[in-house]
């Protein structure tokens, strides 16, 4: 029988383990090379904060890439949305809620607009968003008159700079553990209902233990410094939303179908265009959120804010196993990809590697990661 029992579940888990192993290798190397600075609560807290903007963008980008599209404009849109927030608050004196709503709305509007051009006017996504890359960068320079606009509002700056209290961190950990248990229970029930009735206890325990250990370790490390940074909390929330959308919603399933085979999806009654429009809008919303964090961290909106962020986000997705042809990729992978990129940045900075060398290393690792992935694929 030529039909092998190779399910998406096992192949994607294997890929996830390999990525985590690579990440662990990078961490251990940096820890050794930095004389035990890298793996300290303080540095890991910084690392998590540094990755949160790229991570949020990568989650949205992942969904777009899965549907077979691309967005090169997110860096510029991030700059523009951050500019709008600063402009409305610092120059026009609107309050914090208005600033937040404006930034996210701008992201959604731009996403919808570019999505419409791609989906309904059939202009290639690459071209639409390449145009966006230029145009929105121009727009933010125009809006800010080429100046950096500072933000005085401390509550706003907290979005990027503050941490949640230690107790709140443990409460979140408890909620997370409860959810992990619930999810594992549901999954076991579901698997038992289509398998041979036998429950794989080893797998079940791993499914419960790994997330719980991860949650506890994460909160413990963050609390050992100053508590979970708010940007990290926002990133984790966005990532969970992304995981939920891609694994548990009809919309998410359709994205994989559209990216996997657009003709088959269309003939199965899926409205490809509308779903592509939606995913652009969603990425736009995430870009707005990322813009708020970015602006709040810096405490001001700059005309060049977010430059090259689109490439970080795309690289994170690709390192995380997404295919630019569409149909393949996971939010988890994209997050690990973002973490790998951020770890490289952080570690090399600690080692005082010159910035040009950092770029060369990151670029090489991106190509090498995809090259290894392709070689691995060919063999199976």
């Amino acid at each position, binding site marked *: *029988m*030529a*039909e*092998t*029992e*190779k*399910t*998406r*579940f096992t192949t994607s888990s294997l890929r996830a383990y390999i990525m985590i192993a690579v990440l662990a290798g990078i961490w251990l190397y940096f820890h050794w090379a930095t004389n035990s600075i890298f793996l300290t609560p303080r540095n890991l807290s910084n690392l998590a904060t540094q990755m949160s903007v790229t991570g949020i963008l990568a989650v949205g980008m992942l969904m777009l890439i899965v549907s077979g599209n691309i967005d090169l404009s997110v860096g510029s849109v991030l700059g523009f949305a951050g500019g709008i927030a600063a402009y409305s608050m610092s120059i026009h004196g609107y309050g914090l809620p208005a600033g937040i709503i404006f930034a996210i709305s701008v992201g959604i509007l731009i996403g919808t607009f570019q999505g419409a051009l791609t989906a309904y006017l059939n202009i290639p996504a690459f071209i639409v968003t390449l145009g966006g890359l230029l145009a929105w960068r121009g727009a933010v320079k125009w809006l800010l008159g080429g100046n950096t606009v500072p933000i005085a509002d401390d509550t706003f700056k907290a979005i990027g700079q503050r941490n949640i209290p230690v107790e709140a961190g443990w409460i979140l950990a408890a909620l997370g553990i409860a959810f992990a248990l619930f999810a594992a229970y549901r999954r076991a*029930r*579901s698997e038992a*209902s*289509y*398998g041979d009735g036998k429950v794989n206890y080893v797998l079940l325990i791993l499914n419960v233990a790994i997330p719980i250990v991860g949650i506890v370790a994460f909160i413990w490390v963050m609390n050992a410094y100053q508590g979970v940074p708010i940007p990290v909390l926002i990133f984790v929330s966005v990532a969970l939303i992304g995981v939920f959308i891609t*694994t*548990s*919603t*009809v*919309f*998410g*399933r*359709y994205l*994989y*179908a559209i990216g*996997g*085979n657009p*003709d*088959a*999806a*269309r*003939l*199965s*009654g*899926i*409205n490809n265009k509308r779903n592509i429009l939606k995913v652009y809008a969603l990425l736009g919303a995430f870009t707005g959120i990322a813009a708020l964090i970015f602006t709040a961290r810096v405490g001001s909106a700059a005309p060049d804010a977010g430059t090259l962020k689109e490439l970080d986000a795309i690289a994170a997705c690709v390192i995380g196993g997404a295919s630019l042809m569409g*149909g*393949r990729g996971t939010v988890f992978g994209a997050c690990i990809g973002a973490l790998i990129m951020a770890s490289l940045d952080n570690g090399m900075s600690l080692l005082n590697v010159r910035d040009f060398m950092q770029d060369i290393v990151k670029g090489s690792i991106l190509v090498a990661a995809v090259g290894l992935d392709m070689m691995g694929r060919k063999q199976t």
Partner: protein
Amino acid sequence: MPLLEMRNIVKEFPGVRALDGVSFTLENGEFHALVGENGAGKSTLMKVLSGVYPEGSFDGEILVENVPQHFRSVRDAESAGIAIIYQELSLVKELTVGENIFLGREPSRFGVIDSAKLYHRSATLLRELHLDIDPRTTVGSLGIGRQQLVEIAKALSQDAKILVLDEPTAALTESEVETLFDILTKLKARGVGLIYISHKLDEVFRMSDRITVLRDGKTIGTHLAKDLTRDEVIAEMVGREVGDIFPTPDHELGNPALEVQNLLVYSIDRPDKRIVDDISFSVRKGEVLGIAGLMGSGRTELMTAIFGAWQGKYSRTILVDGKDRSVASPSEAIDSGIAFVTEDRKRYGLIIEQTIADNMTLAGLRSISGRFLTHRTQEIVAVREPMRSLHIKAGTPMVVTGTLSGGNQQKVVLGKWLLTKPKVLFLDEPTRGIDVGAKQEIYAEINKLATEGLAIVLVSSELPEVLGLSDRVLVLYRGRIAAEFTRESATAEKVMTAATGGN
């Protein structure tokens, strides 16, 4: 000494023996037609000949002028003098005629193309073929017929001794066909051996020296064309006793489930050209309506347009269960109870890297899960029933469809559409490229579904399939209904005659 000899060619695909000991010879200056139904193995044989399937992936011998050949690639076959003109032209439309003719072999010095030489040699070549085509025009600006002639010129520029033409006249006008035949006659005189694949028997009889009939991957016979009648060829093509592997239908016919009125479908590339020209028909509950016709007769377009998925212009009125339904998109078609098992499962039917469960639930996902959230357990439960009733051989619903055999893949596509709980089921080439066992299972399923009251429209290039399953047969020819037969009155000969434009 034959120009070409293929001995005992055996080619197997997973689960299917596509060629089962085929032998074929071609003489210098011979016009040898290769006929057979779709799936008989003609294209596979030509792919073996042209090196698409390399040495080692099939058994048997190929000899050109008595020299055994070992083609590892298409290029090897080309250098042995074998050229194929495919149905889909392989020209680069943006390049000029001359650039296309010498594509990959441009006359050049130090990597710089010698354009003067290129166009001079192209012009000479075109003149030899008496073709009035400027080598500097872009290929895209030529009509399909002239593009075909350019393709032939290209083949000859490579000193082809053996030229294979696969349905070359499908897209040609009558005068273009005449030009083509003139040129083929000249090539014969120059000693070129021609292998001609066509469904159009009048052309075959007009031009051929010999005719070889393939059926089910076997050579049924090679005959001198002058010793043979059209009916004899059809009999050999159709061959096996119709009814062998088909269930005995005992459908109870009910009220019309689907009525289609004044269906017009226009070409996507040429919006003034009608591919389906004012067709009206209806299917009753429990009826299997077969639609026969050659490639390009409008069969697939007819179904695609009714389903609301045609991407060009179209118009029609549709009644489902007597109620007017303005189906403007596949999702509306699905909602009104129409399901469409599309042709070419890998291209239109499946998401090959996804699982059986993902694929099967795709069309009916909203009714199986919820409107917004997917529900894995419910999906698995929903998929299990069709997996069992269709005998899909896979351990679990989580098996990736790309690892399944063709027959099981086809069943997954069928299962996907049954999960939408349709009233009308369109089947487009439901058994293309799958083995006999899986075919038989699908036939039994079709019969069972009809017995349960589903209205079924079946399009197939395999005539026995249409005849064996249908209660009624419509024959399409050039976008119109050329004939209609009841189950009793339909014979392979009558259907084939109507489908080839005869009376």
